């Protein structure tokens, strides 16, 4: 509609470009973290992650192998041969473009050329790093010949960070335990409020009783009560009745905090179900309990899924509730968000650990997000556009 009367091409291009720009801007931060999690500590601290996507050109100094150990006799000359990159563990896959034998002329020769070192000694360096250093006894001795080279290194990525963070890391770095702890918090905290809320939502949607409107209004009001208010009273309550800090406490807390949204979403959805079905069932003698379990619950699946995703994302990503109700002084029950905050404090400079740990915690919600986006959007629309 926007593109009537000859304005089409210019504006359409602008729209495409602007959208692309916006998407890239929004994607860029996450990609940075993802790329960083596949780089080694050295790589991360020596160049920005964006540089790692392209072959990098840099100047290095390398040395031929020690002639005292490696030289072999060839007629009256001695030869040391091998690959320059073998001597330098920081470079693995690279190509030499130009090289030199003195720091003043580092681009004197191109790959494959032979340099005259004087006194009958020569060295030949190939693009892949192979060299042959040849000369009389007196020259092929002492330390290995230095080679100054400009190399082009291909992008290089490693899974070592994930191995360290998930499998072998020491207890402060390890995310494996925190991952399972998070899972342990999340699943009951997602399922239990759904059951409790579904019954209440049915009552609020389809049963007639005095005070119903008031209760619905109360749920809408509780929807926005900041959970900050609940921290101290509930912690006192939990400590008082013996639950203390632990999984039971955090499950109960998440259930309580998730209920208003659950009831609100489910009720709004259930109210929209066709009245005929329910009345027919009633005429046929079905009880409310039967109507609920056999008719309403299956029909409400989209709303149940919406809320389940919300609650899952919320409990998985939560830090505050876990810190207050779950994590005790031993730290045995730490969740991933808390683990990452602690890593930020203790290993603030170790980006390879931080990025990997963060990505481990982000990965599951992202999978859920992309798999169930439809329900998430539907839930959002039901929750706020009314």
């Amino acid at each position, binding site marked *: 509609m*926007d593109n009537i009367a000859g304005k089409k091409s210019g504006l359409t291009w602008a*729209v495409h470009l602007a959208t692309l720009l916006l998407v890239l801007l929004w994607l860029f931060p996450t990609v940075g973290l993802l790329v960083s999690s596949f780089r080694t500590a050295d790589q991360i601290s020596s160049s920005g992650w964006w540089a790692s996507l392209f072959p990098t050109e840099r100047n290095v100094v390398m040395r031929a192998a020690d002639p005292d150990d490696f030289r072999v006799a060839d007629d009256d000359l001695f030869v040391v041969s091998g690959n320059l990159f073998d001597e330098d563990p920081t470079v693995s896959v690279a190509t030499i473009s130009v090289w030199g034998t003195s720091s003043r002329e580092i681009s004197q020769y191109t790959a494959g050329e032979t340099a005259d070192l004087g006194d009958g000694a020569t060295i030949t360096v190939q693009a892949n790093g192979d060299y042959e250093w040849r000369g009389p006894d007196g020259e092929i001795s002492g330390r290995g010949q230095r080679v100054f080279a400009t190399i082009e290194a291909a992008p290089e990525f490693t899974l070592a960070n994930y191995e360290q963070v998930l499998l072998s890391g020491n207890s402060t770095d390890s995310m494996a335990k925190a991952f399972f702890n998070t899972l342990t918090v999340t699943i009951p905290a997602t399922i239990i409020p759904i059951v409790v809320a579904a019954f209440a939502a049915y009552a609020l949607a389809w049963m007639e009783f005095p005070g119903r409107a008031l209760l619905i209004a109360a749920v809408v009001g509780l929807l*926005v009560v900041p959970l900050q208010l609940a921290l101290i009273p509930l912690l006192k309550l939990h400590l008082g009745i013996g639950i203390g800090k632990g999984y039971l406490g955090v499950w109960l807390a998440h259930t309580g905090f998730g209920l208003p949204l659950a009831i609100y979403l489910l009720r709004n959805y259930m109210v929209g179900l066709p009245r005929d079905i329910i009345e027919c069932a009633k005429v046929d003698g079905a009880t409310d309990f039967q109507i609920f379990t056999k008719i309403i619950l299956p029909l409400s699946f989209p709303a149940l899924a919406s809320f389940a995703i919300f609650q899952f994302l919320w409990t998985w990503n939560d830090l505050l509730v876990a810190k207050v109700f779950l994590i005790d002084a031993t730290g045995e029950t730490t969740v991933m968000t808390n683990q990452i905050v602690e890593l930020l404090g203790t290993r603030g400079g170790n980006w390879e650990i931080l990025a990997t740990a963060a990505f481990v915690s982000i990965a599951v919600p992202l999978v859920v997000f992309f798999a169930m986006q439809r329900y998430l959007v539907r839930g959002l629309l039901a929750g706020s556009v009314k």
Partner: protein
Amino acid sequence: MNPAIQGLITIVLGVGGCIAYFYLSNQFLDKVLFPARGANAGRNINRANMIRPWLFLFPALFALGLYLAYPVVETLRLSLTDRDQGGAFVGLANYQQMFSETKFWEAMRNNMLWLIVVPALSTAFGLLAAQLTDRIRWGNLAKSLIFMPMAISFVGAAVIFKLIYDARPIDQEQIGILNAIYLGLGGTEPQQWLTIPFWNNFFLMIVLIWIQTGFAMVILSAALRGIPEETIEAAIVDGANPFQIFFKIKVPQIMGTIVVVWTTITLVVLKIFDIVFAMTNGQWETQVLANYMYDKLFRASDWGVGSASAIVIMLLVTPILVWNVYNARKEMR
């Protein structure tokens, strides 16, 4: 006991318990208390139907009351008492102490900044993204990608943006993109962005804007699609240009939704804790109310002042609460 097994048992007990409760209580009501037979069958059915809603509602009401309604009252009471004096009533002393702290006013000032900037920019970017992606072929893909940060935790986002804001000494290669760009554009010295008072607040806000824009976009995009085509066609016939159509025809028609988005993001902002906690922990003048409260409650163990600041957050939320309830009631009529 292994927590995973404990979790499994809890699921079974929780879900099973709920279902058993609902089933058995309904059975009890119908078969024992008010059986639908005998002389008073009709009266009994009516009575049972009067009680049944409350059976369905009870667990939810109990949990809501205990976990949300009771804490509001209890926090209010705690804010008027002093823990060190054994919980004695001290009137408004906690509030007086809080109001005399500069850190509190810093948190208030920052929260107000957040309240203005984040909802405004998130809604604006969301509206822009919704309009841009509305009529292009790869719009849904673009939407997904802009919406994606919604799934990322505040803590994860904090790590992501800490990498962006990272600063290295001038003689080293910059690994934070912001400093790389800053130096590329002629900056002389790498900046520690998060330690520059006042402006660092905005660097923290960017994180939340990044997360919330997708939410705003999804809702506003649905609203834009709901606009009647005739109004736009009429505007085109009258010779309106695309910008006039957007600002004079479309935006006024979705004003209600914009307000809803704005207030929803406002609620998130009022409770913002994780981002500040993970990125600066309130240092360098970036304190916000929720983090101030956490500091008071769990570091200073001052439950009185902590509760008082929680009540301040509640008071700031109250207008939105009232407005929401008012709208919900209006709809139900």
